[in-house]
């Protein structure tokens, strides 16, 4: 009897000490918004990118995408990018989560935090499932945003129209209009990033050519980069010379590396 009591006492103590060790092991619901750890990641990282690269004419950045539930591969991508030392920042073109669950965003953020350079994340369609979009907005940031890396402006636009039922403008043409109007004077090149590319089932294809019309008015449009399709692809969707690069999912163990300088841009697909 005493043995039994002793055991129970130990188990209860063990449980309580584990509890006090971390509140992350208490969860009200997988879709609650009780976020552990860092929030507003994009804002902080964009500030770092804009400060560090201010005045630069050439930049080098990596693109990863669709890392949902591929934590091992995401870890490897981070290690591979860290090992290079010639990357200024990393752009993630969406789908950090598979189920839209809070834990997935936290785990992905914790892996990406191991990057030695700043990173910026876009909203993917999987990130919109259930309360996922609200977790994304808190952990990473806005659906649509613009940032500057040296003399290059990055216009990041939500294109997951299927998720929004016309309740929000997706893609938001007034946001794109604003980006055209308000381009800073020291910006002479633009890269557009999105999750779902034109003519995918997520995109509002009725206005695909209007979208392209807006993009072409951005100063010095270089190219577009997107994810969602999980395959490496480079397409001139509108036969106007604007190339859309589709970054493979991280499962394919490939990331894209772009360099932009006064001579134009170059890209490579890097296996890791």
């Amino acid at each position, binding site marked *: *009897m005493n043995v*039994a*009591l002793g*055991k*129970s006492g130990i*188990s*209860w103590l063990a*449980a309580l000490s*584990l*509890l006090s060790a*971390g509140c992350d*092991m*208490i*969860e*009200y*619901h*997988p*879709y*609650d*918004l*009780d976020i552990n750890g860092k929030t507003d990641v994009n804002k902080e990282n964009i500030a770092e990118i804009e400060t560090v690269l201010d005045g630069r004419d050439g930049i080098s950045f990596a693109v990863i995408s669709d890392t949902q*539930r*591929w*934590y*091992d591969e995401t*870890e490897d991508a981070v290690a591979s990018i860290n090992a290079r030392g010639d990357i200024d920042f990393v752009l993630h073109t969406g789908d950090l989560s*598979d*189920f*839209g*669950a809070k*834990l*997935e965003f936290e*785990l992905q953020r914790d*892996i990406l935090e191991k990057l030695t350079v700043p990173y910026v994340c876009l909203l993917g369609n*999987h990130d919109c*499932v*259930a*309360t996922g979009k*609200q977790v994304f907005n808190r952990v990473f940031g806005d659906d649509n945003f613009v940032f500057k890396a040296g003399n290059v402006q990055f216009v990041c636009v939500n294109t997951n129209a*299927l998720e929004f*039922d016309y309740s929000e403008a997706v893609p938001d043409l007034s946001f794109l209009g604003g980006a055209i109007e308000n381009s800073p004077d020291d910006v002479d090149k633009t890269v557009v990033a999105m999750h779902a590319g034109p003519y995918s*089932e997520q995109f509002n294809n009725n206005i695909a050519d209007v979208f392209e019309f807006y993009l072409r008015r951005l100063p010095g449009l270089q190219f577009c980069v997107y994810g969602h399709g999980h395959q490496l692809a480079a397409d001139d969707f509108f036969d106007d010379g604007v190339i859309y690069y589709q970054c493979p999912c991280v499962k394919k163990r490939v990331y894209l590396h772009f360099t932009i300088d006064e001579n134009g841009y170059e890209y490579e697909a890097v296996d890791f």
Partner: protein
Amino acid sequence: MVLQTCGVVLAGAADTVAVRRWDKRVNWKYDGWERLKPKNVKVQYAGGMGFLSFGAGWEYGRRNQWNSDFFVGFLPKRYSDKLHFTFTVKQTYTPWSIRVCDWLSYEPLTCGLYFTAINGEDFWQREPGKYPNRYYNFSSKVRTSIFLGQSLTFYPDRYEWLRGIGVFYEIGTNELYIVSKATNRTVSMRDILRFSFGVKMQIFKPH
């Protein structure tokens, strides 16, 4: 006649329960419509069922090893976008109860599973028709959780309607987390395991 036969069979079965000196659990059976009366009520904290959940439980088996619960829980706005309610059906198996003294027993193992639904337009059981077939291929509304736990039960003498008060904890996870862990060596057990705590009151002592 049929009912009577059943009664005889059950009584016969009850007689065959091996005597365990250390397990004094007794299944207080009700007759007729009273069988619908819950045998316990519970409050559970966390466990993916909301902030707090309130449940009613029905015990069965020769030593009350089996328990089925229905919980209604809530997730307050403080931890979400707005107030949500959860609805849980839960099955627990408690193989042993070790009577430490007159007023205390220790249940070294509880295990089971539960299904939790959450209300709100953001959650669906089946994908809305706008998606191509099997686009996401899971339900965001219903989670399946499994757990292991332990409990202590106190037996107060004072109130006839209160047969016992149990305190329990559980450690569990859900199917989305299991599939995440199973497909990634870098996802740890700590990442997916969740603690939950509760109080159970065994009520309605028969006259």
